[in-house]
């Protein structure tokens, strides 16, 4: 694969990723991550 093609794929993926990231924030996923990350995760520490 040519280097230019790889760059185009990477840039398209980054653009798609940005759209997904924004869509995720808009539908409340970031808030859900915040809610879970600010509580001690019992599974992570080997209790839950």
């Amino acid at each position, binding site marked *: 694969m040519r280097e230019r093609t790889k760059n185009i794929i990477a840039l398209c993926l980054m653009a798609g990723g940005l759209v997904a990231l924004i869509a995720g924030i808009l539908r409340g996923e970031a808030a*859900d991550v915040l809610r879970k990350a600010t509580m*001690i995760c019992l599974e*992570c520490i080997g209790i839950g």
Partner: protein
Amino acid sequence: MDKKKIRLRPLIQGIYALLSNGWLQGFFTGTIFKGNTKSICLPGLNCYSCPGSFGACPIGALQATLTAAEFKISLYVTGFLTIVGAAVGRFVCGFLCPFGWIQELLHKLPFPKKLKKLPGEKLLRWLKYLILAVFVILLPMFFIDATGIGKPWFCAYICPAGTLEAGLPLTIANSALRQALGFLFTWKVAILISVILLSLLIWRPFCRYLCPLGAIYGCFNPIALLRFKIDENKCTGCGACQKACPMDLPVHQKPNGMECVRCGKCREACPTDAIEIWRKKK
């Protein structure tokens, strides 16, 4: 990433690990940081229940959104991982992962025998993709309780980073948590001890064989904007790059393989400077 920067890599790793886990009072009080930055994923594997962590672990966050009854597909975290992966691939593993850095420090300790790879290396490397598919995606998505909520299986049963960065400091400082410990904690400590012992023997065993985040970023390595390129006019095929590579990768043949964490030791070792960072020709 020139040769000078490669030599600075351990310093960058250390500073990053301390900055991203800099809420030091948590280690003494047995509590975790609760600020708004916790909604932002950190690029490396960094447990969000680490007392000092200012951000979220992308694998923990991915499972958290996959297990939530209202989402099922995590656009936020997959979007984040796609952006980071397409930009720099496993450069994150080499420079911005606290657990990778800890394994590297352990590997520097003297040990009677150091190995470049384990028997069955090729097969073992596929383990992390299996773990990603089964423990990070499928089980949290489909193994759900009566209320429609799943469980973060990778965090619960495998992740040694969570045990080291969160489990141990929190249970040492927090007596209530200490009283709740049981078999699961013992199991996770056993995994952590295995990874620590293996780290004395080989370079970054968790990253090679088990890390689902490395598996995700590795898929982006061949097309990421940060890529290596071999100058065919300079490369003599001497194999010095593979000899210097702590993962034993044939960099001169496959400079952008899925296992490369971009530590740059191959570039440092190349006698003809044939391994370049891809740049657009002027």
